């Protein structure tokens, strides 16, 4: 490796990078956007459960529910008004109790309770409401209603210690910052091949390995630098900073490898954008799983970015340490080594 050559190539790539508005747009403006998104999102989590209800007669058990902390029940005068409120999206769920509910319970019968959901409500809400009514009915009659229920815990149980949305988004945003550099690096390489400047470089005494090293350093520098800047500004290094630092660094190497692969697949910048976006979306999936617990399950482990996302998420949001994420870091290192090797092999063929 000739350091003079690598320095010259880096200087050239930096000049090309800064003179290209597209790169500036997806990096500098991008990072400002991500940081902005983080700070715009609420820092506090609204833990209140809101429920609309129509109850001509309010059973005592429901009155108790109203008095519980964290439960916000609004009563409507008519069932139609309740239906409209749910339709308008004011409430995800509404419960309409029949007029004879107390008498029916008293006579041992099963009152007809209607539950309204918005169409966009996740299916888990349905189960939760059934359980709630079941519980209230039990409190009222002293006996369980005669139907089966299945208990389901959605995501990690953080009762009393919920993580604010913006904090849950930190791993997603940080990984997104890294992933966008796939596009930057791959288009820088694709442009060099498309415009023939790569050929001009390859007839100098420079070695292909030096070219890859320079591109790799640029890619790692851009991705890692931005991710570190972002995490620094959003408090991502408040716990176990070394693990987060290391995970992002290994992740940046993986991103460079993927950038090489995309550049070797794509014939031009348009193709880079197409392939890059496809890969970017797939790699971002584990990040969405962090934001929406329960969205993905074990199958996400086949996505290379899972081990990066999971590590960053568990360290910064759940305070785990080396012992917990060690295997993740090991797998991530292996994947990154494999990807960068594959990227260099395929790109070397492309340069030929």
């Amino acid at each position: 490796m000739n350091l003079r050559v690598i320095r010259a190539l880096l200087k050239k790539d930096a000049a090309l990078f800064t003179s290209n508005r597209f790169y500036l747009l997806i990096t500098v403006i991008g990072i400002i956007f991500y940081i902005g998104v983080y700070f715009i999102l609420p820092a506090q989590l609204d833990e209140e459960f809101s429920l609309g209800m129509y109850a001509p007669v309010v059973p005592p058990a429901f009155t108790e529910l109203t008095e519980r902390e964290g439960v916000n029940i609004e009563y409507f005068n008519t069932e139609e008004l309740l239906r409209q409120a749910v339709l308008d999206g004011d409430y995800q769920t509404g419960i309409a109790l029949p007029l004879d509910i107390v008498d029916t319970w008293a006579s041992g019968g099963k009152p007809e309770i209607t539950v309204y959901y918005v169409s966009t409500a996740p299916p888990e809400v349905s189960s939760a409401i059934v359980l709630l009514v079941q519980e209230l009915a039990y409190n009222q009659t002293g006996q369980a209603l005669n139907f089966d229920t299945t208990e389901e815990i959605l995501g990690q149980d953080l009762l009393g210690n919920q993580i604010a949305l913006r904090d849950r988004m930190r791993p997603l945003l940080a990984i997104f910052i890294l992933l966008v550099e796939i596009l930057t690096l791959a288009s820088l390489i694709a442009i060099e091949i498309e415009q023939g400047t790569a050929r001009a470089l390859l007839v100098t005494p420079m070695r292909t390995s030096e070219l890859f090293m320079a591109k790799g350093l640029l890619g790692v520098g851009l991705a890692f630098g931005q991710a570190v800047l972002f995490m620094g500004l959003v408090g991502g290094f408040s716990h176990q900073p070394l693990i987060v630092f290391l995970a992002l660094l290994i992740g940046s190497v993986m991103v460079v490898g993927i950038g090489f692969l995309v550049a070797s697949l794509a014939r031009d910048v348009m193709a880079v954008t197409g392939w890059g976006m496809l890969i970017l979306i797939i790699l971002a999936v584990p990040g969405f799983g962090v934001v929406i617990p329960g969205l993905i399950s074990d199958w996400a482990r086949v996505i290379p970015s899972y081990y990066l996302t999971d590590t960053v998420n568990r360290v910064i949001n759940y305070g785990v340490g080396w012992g917990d994420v060690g295997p993740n870091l090991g797998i991530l290192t292996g994947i990154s080594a494999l990807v960068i090797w594959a990227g260099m092999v395929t790109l070397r063929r492309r340069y030929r």
Partner: protein
Amino acid sequence: MTDKSIIVENLTYNYGTLVAVDHISFEMGTGEILGFLGPNGAGKTTTVKMLTGQLLPQDGRAILLGKDIARETQAARKHIGVCFEQTNLYEQMTALDNLQLFAELFGVKEFDGYALLKRVGLEGRERDKVSNYSKGMKQRLMVARSLVNRPEIIFMDEPTAGLDPVSSEAIGNIILEERDRGATIFLTTHDMWEADKLCHRVAFVEQGKIAAIDTPRNLKQLYGKRSLIAEVMSGAGLEKREISMDTPDTARSVEKLFEKEKVVTIHSEEATLEDIFIKVTGRRLTE
């Protein structure tokens, strides 16, 4: 070191079943300009790629300055310069930065980019972005870039293609200056007039093979014919008469012409390289 800058032996390259370069052999002496002439697809660019280490020969070898380009690629490349046919400059960088980059890649110490740009007629525009240059200016910059390391061998692929006469002449002059400096120049071109003017020898390439290689003069003598073309006044107006200069009775024929006809103009005419190329390969250069 050898007095032969380039020795090519049985160089071969196939793209699948297509034979691009078919066992070609030739040598180039130090300070020589060799014109490599052939139509598109004849194998010129593939040959240049192998000679500059961009492609590994599938058979044969190329020795540049005593170094096998396939085995001692980096060592050989230190002493070569390549001017590509297709403009491949960093357009968002200045001309000076383009040259500086390549000077650093070649490890040139105390590189004077301004002097080199002045030499190719780009003084005053050194700090302009290349994207603002005209085609002729870009081509001059390409030539300048191929010279940053003061190469002992220069590969020039159609350096004057599509240029105006002034730019073509400027590049032609630089080629001659480099020859005078002692550089060996491998020139591929479609321009027979340029090849005739600049090259010590020319090679006609067709279907991956060298159909003929010699000095332009020898090729003309071997394959061409020299003649005198006279315009004479007859009853029907001006008519042409052609007298071969390669027969023993040329002088007698000229004498007879002047005796019997009213000669208006007379001039000698010799075969062009284009004519010779057609005669040797059966094809035109620019088909």
